[in-house]
């Protein structure tokens, strides 16, 4: 899947691959070793965060799970 930053798609693909493997083989199994994808994530983030600024995508200050807080519990 393409990244919002045209130049970030390859970095994203490499990170996704690493993440999917870690998620299935370590995280879901409760294995809390070192995250092997940290470096790939950093590289990918520096690219995509720049693209978000350039495109003025309004994510600044958006709280985690933001609007969920006003909703009744399911």
């Amino acid at each position: 899947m393409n990244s919002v930053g045209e130049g970030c798609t390859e970095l994203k693909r490499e990170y996704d691959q690493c993440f999917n493997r870690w998620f299935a083989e370590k995280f879901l199994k409760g294995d809390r070793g070192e995250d092997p994808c940290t470096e790939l994530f950093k590289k990918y983030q520096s690219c995509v965060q720049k693209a978000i600024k350039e495109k003025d995508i309004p994510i600044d200050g958006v709280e985690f799970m933001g609007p969920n807080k006003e909703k009744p519990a399911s």
Partner: protein
Amino acid sequence: MVKYFNCAASLKGTWDQVSQAFWQRYPNPYSNHVLTEDIIFREVTPDNRLISRRLLTKTSRVPRWAEKFLPGHMARKAYIIEDSVVDPQKRTTVSFTWNITHARLMSVQERCVYTVSLDNSNMTEVKREAWISSNLCGFSRAVQEFGLARFKSSVVKTMKGFEYVLARMQGETPTRTLAETATEKARETALAAKEKAKGLASHAQKKQYVAMKTLIPTGLNTSALEP
């Protein structure tokens, strides 16, 4: 005023499989409206839950006639945030998804909870809730109705996409046949035609609205004019 919608469905796959598919959902044959996908935040909490924020760009899902209320360069795109918490101990994933652009025109907020099905541990239960609202003066009800109809059809696509990715992960050939693809195409064409007709009707209605607005003083409660 907010429209509320909820539904529950099951996915064929263990909670672990569905959780993996959750991150590999795009692209799939039912996600043509998803243009880009990025993880823009991710962290494992001290109590071992994975929290993530995904940023999606989707083609704008507003009525044609409503596009004139959008800034030109943004008219065809909407940015969506999907925050999620995956808890492998409790085997629960919660996601909350909402649009961060065009929210005055139409705001769609969705919460999904994925849990192991009580009847069958090889199945995963998805509980979905949505809140749809609009602040567009005089048109809010029309936009909400439109939003709800669009949302319901997008839920079908989401679930089909999920099933497709799950089947592919489980090594099966996804069950989407050529015939189904053809039917889908025909349905989309029909839908587009219907949309166009609706657009024309609303356009006529809007003309009438504008005409009436010029006849009556501004600042009047226009709720009587809502369709």
